[in-house]
């Protein structure tokens, strides 16, 4: 039992460090973790879950707007702006950066660039979602084994 907890904790630490190192997360995610305490034990998961829902809605809406003829760049820019704010709030740095590029292409009414950014956004979101879900899975296993989740 103790050996499993120690291994899980080490694995969690390594995974989280890798996410920071590869740029998926930035300091804002650490700030988010600091807000979790006894009164709000599931704050991080709640915010991330909300982010996942927002992301899927926004990506769907942006894809639909790009299929319209003529393309409503202003509407797409609003979605990209919204997505940029969400990703910045949770510290999803790579997603935030692609949103910024996306907005530049919307400003320039560059359809090809927008299409490329949307595709890249979908890929980045998918990678981030898998990594975060793995992170939360490890945390759940540690809690189930009676251990404490290590801070960064």
């Amino acid at each position, binding site marked *: 039992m103790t050996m499993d907890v120690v291994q899980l904790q080490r694995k969690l630490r390594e995974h989280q460090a890798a996410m920071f190192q590869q740029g998926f997360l930035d*300091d*804002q995610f*650490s*700030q*988010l973790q*600091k*807000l979790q*305490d006894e*009164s*709000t034990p599931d*704050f991080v998961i*709640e*915010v991330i879950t*909300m*982010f996942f829902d*927002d992301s899927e809605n926004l990506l769907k809406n942006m894809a639909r707007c790009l299929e319209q003829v003529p393309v409503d760049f202003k509407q797409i820019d*609003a979605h990209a*702006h*919204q997505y*940029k*704010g*969400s990703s*910045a*709030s*949770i*510290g999803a740095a790579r997603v935030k950066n692609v949103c910024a590029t996306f907005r530049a292409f919307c400003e320039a009414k560059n359809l090809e660039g927008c299409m490329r950014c949307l595709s890249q956004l979908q890929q980045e979101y998918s990678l981030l979602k898998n990594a975060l879900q793995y992170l939360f899975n490890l945390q759940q296993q540690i809690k189930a084994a009676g251990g404490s989740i290590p801070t*960064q």
Partner: protein
Amino acid sequence: MESCNCIDPQVPADDLLMKYQYISDFFIALAYFSIPLELIYFVKKSAVFPYRWVLVQFGAFIVLCGATHLINLWTFRIHSRTVAVVMTTAKVLTAVVSCATALMLVHIIPDLLSVKTRELFLKNKAAELDREMGLIRTQEETGRHVRMLTHEIRSTLDRHTILKTTLVELGRTLALEECALWMPTRTGLELQLSYTLRQQNPVGYTVPIHLPVINQVFSSNRAVKISPNCPVARLRPYAGKYMPGAVVAVRVPLLHLSNFQIYDWPEVSTRSYALMVLMLPSDSARQWHVHELELVEVVADQVAVALSHAAILEESMRARDQLIEQNVALDLARREAETAIRARNDFLAVMNHEMRTPMHAVIALSSLLQETDLTAEQRLMVETILKSSNLLATLINDVLDLSRLEDGSLQLEAATFNLHSLFREVLNLIKPVASVKKLSLTSHVASDLPMYAIGDEKRLMQTILNVVGNAVKFSKEGCISITAFVAKPESFRDARIPDFLPVPSDNHFYLRVQVKDSGSGINPQDIPKLFTKFAQNQSLTRNPAGSGLGLAICRRFVNLMEGHIWVESEGIGKGCTVTFIVKLGIPDRSNEFKLPFVPKVPGNHGSTNFAGLKVLVMDDNGVSRTVTKGLLMHLGCDVTTASSSEECLRVVSLEHEVVFMDVCTGLDGYELAVRIHEKFTKHQDRPLIVALTGNTKKVTKENCMRVGMDGLILKPVSVDKMRGVLSELLERRVLFESV
């Protein structure tokens, strides 16, 4: 018988013969008697004659022989029996003595021959002694000549005089026709005619140094006879008609010139020689004598010694002159230093008594003015006056600290302080100045930087303020970034600080702060001058009106904190990066939880407990709204949220003290601010309206100020940042973060 006349004609013949015999016997007897007298005389003269007995025998022999011949005089006539007896006796004695003498001579002849040999030996010996006496006299005269020459040569320490005197004295002593001195040229490949006894102005006459005759002379330390026709000897046409005089040459050792820093001599690194050539008069039968050659050799050695002394003297004279110059310079420097000290003391007195007090008055009055009812613009101006006054007061204190730094009396005051809070204070102090110049100011403090550290907080803040203040001062546009993180050991391997390799430990670490601007930049050649206090070099474009004081103080503080500071710039107009590393202590972990959690917030609002503070958050982004709400609730606030302007306007009430609103969605946020103002007619009843934005454009800030917002915060917002923001807002009721 007398009557017989027939034999009478034979009597005259016998008579003549008898007369002849008679005369001869007489002379024989005379000679025989004189020889002993000569022998006696000879023996008296030579006192060492060893054979006196033989001499007596010989004398007796001679005397007896004379006696027999004398007696014969009476035997020519009829003689008596007595005469016959005497004659017989005499002859018998003569026979005996003659035989004895003959036998004795057999023994003494070898001795006499030996005496003769010894006489010859003595004669030769005498001749030899006579020659040696002559030689001794000659050598004595030579020695006298040498002493006289040496005295003349070494009576001066001037090289030119030494060489000229040598030639003159040699010419006089040896009655030379010509004497010449060849010196090696600077290249060392030729010999140049430098001095002559009679020929005038022998300039530019050179011969190759590798001539066989020169090699012959240089390879020997003796005077060498050379041909009168060789190049170094044929200086001019023959003065005589028949034959030139005999010529000798000798080498003169020169100094190892590299051992002496004599700049006007040829710079040759190997041992070299000069060549001295001496010519006897033409048409004379004179030849070089051994003692004359010896004289020449001795003189050559003396010349070498004299030249060496001359060189040493020249070097010592030069060293003396140099020391005199250095002493003059030192005296001047000492007087300048004394003047500088007096000037500094006067300046410090002025700073202390005449500038600090009025500055305190300005600061106090500005603080009082800040508490009155002001518009946002007026408040910003008063804030700027206050910050500038504080900066100026800091500069005055810098000057006073500098004097203590210089005499070593300043000591760091180590205490535990909040490191993150320190950087927030720096930002709060610099932002008003930066905003006036419309500069973007960003700060990044690494998350792994310890929250608390042990060190001199005041001096560390002063250093950071100096560096950041300079960046703001010399930037007309663009951005300034402040980065702070723990210096890793690998980052110490920097070419700029090769000797700086400290290692962090469990109780201390190294803080690295980097301030980067896009300002006027510095010529890389002028960077070293930045740390020189009061440098007023006109070519330093970065200091057109500055005193160059801050960086000098920064360096001293950083050095006191066991760190290092340096400046990088690619050139004029290329911006500037100032980096420094300082050593800070890490508080013991056992004491970590005992430290009071009191962030350094200026003003009277010392409490960070926002329990019960009613805050309204308006953000149409659900995720952002949730994060901001969580952050405020974490700080103890009572948070209400709204997802649209209409909802916000409907919910906002007198109970809310602060309204945070997102202004990224077009004009909706600005319209909301205006309507909130309209809703609350009294200023003191209105909640503080703070914009939240991720937009770094200047127009956003201008729009916020125009519609009467009280603050602008850049997202993302961390816990510490929000805590500082709330404290600042409740304290000053205004906070515009630089964008």
